[in-house]
């Protein structure tokens, strides 16, 4: 009997939602997510489905313990996002969310590299619509940059897949040995995982999406990249140190960030760093750790983004320097946010504790003691910025206003559907924290790790307590300021403009200015395009050069 592919359920659901009456959109989105969840649960490990594509037999569904762990949490968060966005999402947004979810599940269930590439690009194509759904000039520009960056990543991935096909005649997707062809594939995966220095697209695009769109984006893009890294490059030592660098980089930027959605976006980079480091260790325990961390992360990061999304919905703003004093107006949002914050910080009895202990512990057990301590340093930064700084600046203290508005600030009611989704996500995080077997039973191999020992509880409690003491001592230095932190996107967003200005200035200095008659005033120049032509042109030329290079080498 042909298996019901969960991705197909979601993609058909996306088409239905796109044409169905708007009033049915919320119910259809949630129902589609529930059917997809049921389809994932119904899949047995070892299930495969193939199809003929010219002379190749491609595997469009291959379920095993690793892929099912990711597929299960992907389907679950689709339902949560559907509930969360019930009263805020538009028709296009719902369809794009279901499309992204379907493509994400398609990636983790793909059994060969060509099918993987198809779903990979489908994921980019639908995810960018969630950025555009922000419907502002800023989201348009961020969406185009997202598209440009991921176009390059997609071309690299395809180049690697084709090169490997020509070299080996195989499209099989399993453990890959690093060489020229798989190097292209690796860079394509790392770009989607937001590995530094290929990370800037993430904090650029996610905060510009809609309130619910950001929740969807955070669940699928980087986590499907974590899955393919675990599947293809487990044990690659480079990933250990790359992951550690990502973990620290993300929290340093989060400590500085004023925009609370950008802060959490930088935190995605940091948390993915934990997963990448564990994948680099590559032992069974480490792959379990990376998978457990990814699974829990989808749930607690979703909850955190729902919380700040509710603040944004209620106040229309997301910079800490214009927030503060919301504890009376949005107390339940604070409580639910704090459940997510406790989870991501690894507080005992919340989901992050069993997940992070397993991941970080496996890095130390793998012989990378220095990496383990650096990940603990990143954990300090996580608690500091997500659980202490962000709530302190958002919900407590004096209400801060923008310079161009009066002292009064209106805080709108938050829809019950938002509370319902946050409540469900919080319940899931607490349930996993209290009963880690709920998480560990999903892992690729049997987990014998015991998180709740006296030693681990004491260490975690002391780590968190003294971070809080440090925050108390240094809180004045964390005062919010309306500033923007430059990231590696400076290279393609600001450097060309500066070079152009420098060249123009230099040319104007050297060339004599001719005497010109008075000319009639010119009409105003057209508004700047959302994407500079050199970016688009560069991406296209780069893609052509890569395809040409692969053809020649092959």
């Amino acid at each position, binding site marked *: 009997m042909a298996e019901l592919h969960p991705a197909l359920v979601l993609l058909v659901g996306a088409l239905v939602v796109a044409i169905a009456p708007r009033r049915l959109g919320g119910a259809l989105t949630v129902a589609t997510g529930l059917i997809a969840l049921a389809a994932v649960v119904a899949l047995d490990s070892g299930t495969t489905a193939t199809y003929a594509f010219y002379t190749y037999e491609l595997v469009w569904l291959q379920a095993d313990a690793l892929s099912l762990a990711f597929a299960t949490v992907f389907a679950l968060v689709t339902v949560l996002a559907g509930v969360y966005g019930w*009263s*805020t999402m538009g028709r296009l947004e719902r369809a794009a969310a279901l499309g992204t979810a379907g493509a994400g599940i398609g990636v983790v269930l793909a059994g060969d590299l060509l099918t993987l590439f198809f779903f990979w690009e489908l994921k980019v194509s639908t995810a960018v619509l969630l950025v555009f759904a*922000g*419907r*502002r000039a*800023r989201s348009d520009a961020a969406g185009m940059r997202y598209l440009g960056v991921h176009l390059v990543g997609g071309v690299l991935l395809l180049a690697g897949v084709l090169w490997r096909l020509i070299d080996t005649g195989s499209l099989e997707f399993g453990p890959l040995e690093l060489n020229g062809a798989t190097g292209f594939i690796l860079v394509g995966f790392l770009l989607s995982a937001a590995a530094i220095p290929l990370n800037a697209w993430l904090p650029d695009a996610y905060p510009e999406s*809609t309130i619910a769109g950001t929740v969807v984006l955070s669940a699928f893009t980087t986590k499907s990249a974590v899955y393919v890294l675990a599947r293809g490059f487990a044990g690659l030592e480079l990933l250990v140190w790359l992951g550690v660098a990502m973990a620290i980089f993300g*929290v340093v930027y989060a*400590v*500085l960030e004023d925009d609370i959605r950008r802060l959490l976006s930088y935190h995605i980079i940091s948390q993915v760093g934990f997963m990448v480091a564990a994948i680099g260790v590559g032992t069974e325990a480490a792959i379990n750790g990376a998978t457990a961390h990814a699974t829990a992360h989808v749930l607690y990061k979703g909850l955190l983004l729902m919380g700040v999304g509710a603040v*944004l*919905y*209620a*106040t*229309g*703003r*997301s910079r800490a320097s214009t927030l503060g004093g*919301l504890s*009376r*107006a949005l107390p*339940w*949002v604070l409580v639910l946010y704090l459940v997510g914050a406790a989870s991501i910080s690894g507080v005992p009895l919340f989901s992050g504790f069993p997940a992070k202990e397993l991941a970080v512990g496996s890095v130390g057990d793998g012989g990378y003691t220095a990496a383990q*301590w650096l990940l*603990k*340093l990143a954990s*300090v*930064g996580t608690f*500091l910025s997500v659980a202490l700084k962000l709530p302190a600046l958002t919900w407590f203290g004096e*209400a801060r206003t*923008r310079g161009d508005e009066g002292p009064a*600030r*209106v*805080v*709108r*009611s*938050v*829809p*019950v559907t*938002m509370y319902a989704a946050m409540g469900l996500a919080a319940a899931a995080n607490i349930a996993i924290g209290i009963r880690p077997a709920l998480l560990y039973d999903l892992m690729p191999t049997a987990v014998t790790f015991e998180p709740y020992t*006296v*030693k681990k509880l*004491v*260490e975690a409690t*002391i*780590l968190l*307590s*003294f*971070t809080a*003491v*440090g925050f*108390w*001592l*240094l809180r004045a*230095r964390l005062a919010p300021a*309306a*500033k*923007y*932190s*430059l*990231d590696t996107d400076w290279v393609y967003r600001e450097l060309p403009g500066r070079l152009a200005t420098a060249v123009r200035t230099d040319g104007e200095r050297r060339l004599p200015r001719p005497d010109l008659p008075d000319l009639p005033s010119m009409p105003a120049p057209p508004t700047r395009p959302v994407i500079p032509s050199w970016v688009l042109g560069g991406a296209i030329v780069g893609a052509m050069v890569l395809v040409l290079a692969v053809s020649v080498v092959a």
Partner: protein
Amino acid sequence: MSALTSPTLAVRIGVVVAALVLATLVEIVTDASVPGRMPLFALGATFVLVLGAKQLAKLIQRPLTAEEIATEHLPATAATASDASDEAGSEGVHHG
């Protein structure tokens, strides 16, 4: 009054020392880890992250431009009237 005799500083030092002593005692009693290592690590890491980030900020941060501030308001403030009918949250409209 010098900085060292400032009550605020004295309180801070007192709190930190008391916390360190308590944490070290707990570590000794439970035989959890090398006494004093984890509290000093956490405290040191917090200082390194915050002060290091502030130094880095001098290099990588710039003030938001007027255009960026003007365009930052997100669609939430311009929500359609139909949204209001969907709202049944327990938290009413507040003026803060």
